[in-house]
């Protein structure tokens, strides 16, 4: 079955209704905040992302704010692990320019980079 491009949004809404899907929604009025949050996220300013999106009510903006908070917490956790004595800290070593990404901590979803050379 081929669906014309202009019918696709309507079809998607119908399917959402038929199958009990709940997709994230967002308001056009929050476009500026979301774009600002996107730029801040690329700069890794996670706390500022959360504060920019604080007044937003759409589910997409809420998700971005909460995810930024989650990532900020993970970052702080990683930093505290690095600072504490007796913890195995991944060292950045350069041996021949080959960079390997090693997943060290699986359960907590923190990916740390290790550089071998």
């Amino acid at each position, binding site marked *: 079955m081929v669906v014309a491009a202009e019918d696709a949004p309507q*079809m998607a809404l119908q399917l959402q209704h038929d199958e009990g899907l709940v997709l994230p929604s967002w308001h056009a009025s929050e476009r500026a905040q979301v774009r600002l949050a996107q730029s801040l996220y690329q700069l890794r300013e996670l706390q500022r992302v959360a504060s920019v999106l604080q007044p937003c009510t759409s589910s997409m903006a809420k*998700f971005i704010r909460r995810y930024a908070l989650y990532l900020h917490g993970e970052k702080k956790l990683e930093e505290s692990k690095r600072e504490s004595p007796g913890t195995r800290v991944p060292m950045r070593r350069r041996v021949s320019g080959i960079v390997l990404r090693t997943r060290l901590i699986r359960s907590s*979803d923190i990916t740390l980079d290790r550089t071998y050379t």
Partner: protein
Amino acid sequence: MSIINPNLEALREEFEVELDHERTGKSGPIDGVNLYLYGLVLLNLQSADKYAEAALIECKQLDGCSCVYCVSCCRAREVLVSACRRYPWNWAAWEALSRSCTKYEHLLRLLDHRLVQEVRRPPSSVFITAASHLSSHISLACCRLDLASILQLHARVLSCQL
């Protein structure tokens, strides 16, 4: 030194409030992406729990038992299953669900009991089954992958996506 993400508790409380609002009808249903994040928060809280070891104990009777940590009773899995049902194209939610199951048989049973019986089987459930087989080094021949029939069921969805 903190051994847990310091924002998890605040996020959990926020999600709980929103779920309460959903239950009482004050707001609409939470979307699948937000539910996925809630499931992730619960999984992390559970792994940091002092009973984390107990959570790894395999439960013999997966359905209808009173064990707090078994597959059917675990809150994080419940939430992740809802997230997968509400937004089946979120592959990260399926991966988190499979990670929450300590044995791949549990995942298969979870998929069979919770998803197939209540809603039409989403195509992602077939793919996560295949991925679990691969990660467990089990031959795909053992897995009854009926991709064609499942994808036919979702032909409307796929044509819409294309």
